[in-house]
């Protein structure tokens, strides 16, 4: 229950997340854990170890690969899978493009981020997943503040904010019709700072791009972007060597860097505690429209 003083707040958040993961195992036939390579899904993996070891995870990990990843993320992913001995399923956005299901965006701000949704839904359909565990948190932004822990999606992957189920106590209703699936968010109640404090406490390794390093960058729409072959650049774009780190690890074309000298996790926690900019402020494609997140959720994005 919520009111318990014997547990430290991180212990309580952890215990709640483990509880939710075990509910997924108990209630669904074919669940999956959506693994993005970011700190939130890395945290989920640690929580899954706590929930199910010495047994195997009752679900595979699923990575939707835009093909525009930071190399550091893919390295990390492959080493992690090796260590865990769990199953990894990869859905390639490139396959969706080749199959003509989606069309690559054009122009300077082209990104594959929006295309991921189709690949994700195809992957879910192909493997008939009935529950997908994700690392979204309610504090990320307004559209998520009302998200349920068990969030039902129709067969088109759509989220209907008007048809959310009441969610009482810690009783999660995972009953669905055929073709529907549930997105499950075990760390809903964590803030960005909670995640970092947990990573520090648990000594969890992260992809190196989370920490300050030197990198070639360009400035786009007021944000620092990593210069990469995936970014459509022209003469106007000036490449500069900057000292940066990333606060999220999405597609390279839409994940903005922040100038930083935070080389250690303690530095990062200090940086966030002083709260310069909230996390989603650093993800470019949410800036496209205010309601971007709500739209993407309705469309089946995580």
């Amino acid at each position, binding site marked *: *229950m*919520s*009111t*318990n*003083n*014997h*547990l*430290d*707040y991180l*212990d*309580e*958040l*952890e*215990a*709640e997340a*483990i*509880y939710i993961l*075990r*509910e997924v*195992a*108990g209630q669904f036939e074919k669940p999956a854990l959506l693994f993005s390579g970011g700190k939130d899904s890395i945290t989920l993996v640690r929580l899954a*170890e*706590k*929930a*199910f*070891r*010495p*047994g*195997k995870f*009752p679900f595979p990990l699923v990575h939707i690969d835009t093909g525009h990843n930071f190399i550091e993320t893919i390295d990390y992913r492959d080493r992690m899978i090796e260590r865990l001995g769990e199953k990894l399923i990869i859905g390639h956005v490139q396959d969706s493009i080749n199959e003509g299901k989606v069309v690559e965006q054009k122009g300077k701000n082209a990104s594959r981020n929006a295309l991921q949704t189709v690949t994700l839904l195809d992957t879910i359909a192909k493997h008939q997943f009935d529950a997908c565990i994700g690392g979204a948190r*309610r*504090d990320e932004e*307004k559209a998520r*503040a*009302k998200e349920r822990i068990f969030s039902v999606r129709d067969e088109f992957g759509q989220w209907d*904010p*008007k048809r*959310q*189920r*009441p*969610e*009482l*106590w*810690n*009783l999660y*209703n995972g*009953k*669905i*019709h055929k073709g529907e699936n549930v997105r499950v968010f075990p760390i*809903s*109640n964590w*803030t960005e*700072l*909670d995640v970092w404090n947990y990573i520090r406490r648990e000594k969890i390794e992260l992809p190196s791009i989370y920490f300050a390093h030197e990198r070639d960058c360009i400035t786009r729409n007021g944000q620092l972007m990593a210069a990469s072959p995936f970014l459509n650049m022209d003469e106007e774009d000036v490449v500069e060597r900057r000292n940066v780190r990333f606060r999220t690890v999405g597609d390279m074309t839409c994940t903005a860097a922040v100038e930083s000298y935070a080389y250690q996790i303690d530095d990062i926690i200090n940086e966030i505690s002083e*709260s*310069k*900019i*909230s996390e989603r*402020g650093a993800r470019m494609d949410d800036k496209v429209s205010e309601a971007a997140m709500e739209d993407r959720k309705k469309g089946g994005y995580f």
Partner: protein
Amino acid sequence: MDILKFITAGSVDDGKSTLIGRLLYDSEAILADQLEALHASNRKNDDGTIDLAILTDGLKAEREQGITIDVAYKYFNTDKRKFIIADAPGHIQYTRNMVTGASNAGLAIILIDARKGVIEQTIRHSFLVSLLGIPQVVVCINKMDMLDYNEEAYNQIVNNYKALAEKVELNNVKFIPVSALKGDNIVHSSINMPWYKGESLLDYLENVDIKVDNSAAHARLPVQWVIRPQTDELHDYRGYAGRVASGSFRVNDPVTVLPSGFTSSIAKIEQLDADPVEASTGMSVTIHLADDIDISRGDLLVNSAEQPQVAQLIEADLCWMDTRPLDSTHTYLVQHNSKVTRCRISEVLYKVNINTLEKQYDEEFKLNDIGRIVIKTADALAFDPYQKNKANGGAIIIDSRTNVTVGALMLRSAVD
């Protein structure tokens, strides 16, 4: 640092959004870019100060546009506590949302507009807070600035509320005179009300005792999942995974598995990197028993010395949450901890008019209705009365036709 979840209850325009905004703003719990957006906004109060209600605008915009009205969660923390606010609308047509928000709350802030005093909505909100068993209540008497911070007016409202609290059986009520707009007694103590000697709202929220008395609570652990690696090295490994709902379990404690009634004792308590000797309330653990008995998801482990009630016919309070009224001929599902079984509402004893607290005996159970019923379940439930042990006394009703959660049950007692 620990976690306090609380709910705010008030009627439209009592100042709920302003109060939450003030709490976040004055406690410096707002992120820089949100702060920028706040200052950039051209919505201002009449006196030119920034409108803090913008910080909780999610719900408001929706209310205006008539779309989703729902529970929105907000997070902030101070050095002492992490706070989770469940922001639910207070209008009667959103009773189910308030019930939802209240189900997990350790504390309720009830907002009263000082100019209006205790009104119908206050009665309703207080009744719900009591029904859902929220352990702590703070009544914030708001807009004191509009009454020139008058002590008499405040005392009058406090006295009226105390009478109400007694009627709905609310204990632990704390009163604070505030002005959310001006910031009096929200984070900083008010210089305008020297007659008020108590703490500010934030001081109170940071320091209120939210400890659960573990020694008094009975040990309950619903089994969620059985861990059976079935590998060569771990051939006989069989761990029962679950979260301690109440009380605590220690190694060697005698346990009973319900509803089967088999008994054994705790051989080992496991976590990933530790084997604690005790699993206390809220901990997610894996339990090993001394004997090989058949246990699966849906079973409840209890300390053998502290048995819950086990019954198929149970009297309970019900809040109906679906637009389709309760159908007493329909077979629903009931979910109680990890157990799901079929059920029927076999009798409606009465409904409560939650504005006047009068009982009603005639009509059908519709959306937002609350009352007392008898539920009949296919398999027996092993439960504790909700008012004694929330963690093992709450249940939800699911309509098998739509799979939607249609009712909240607060179980009371077995019917012979």
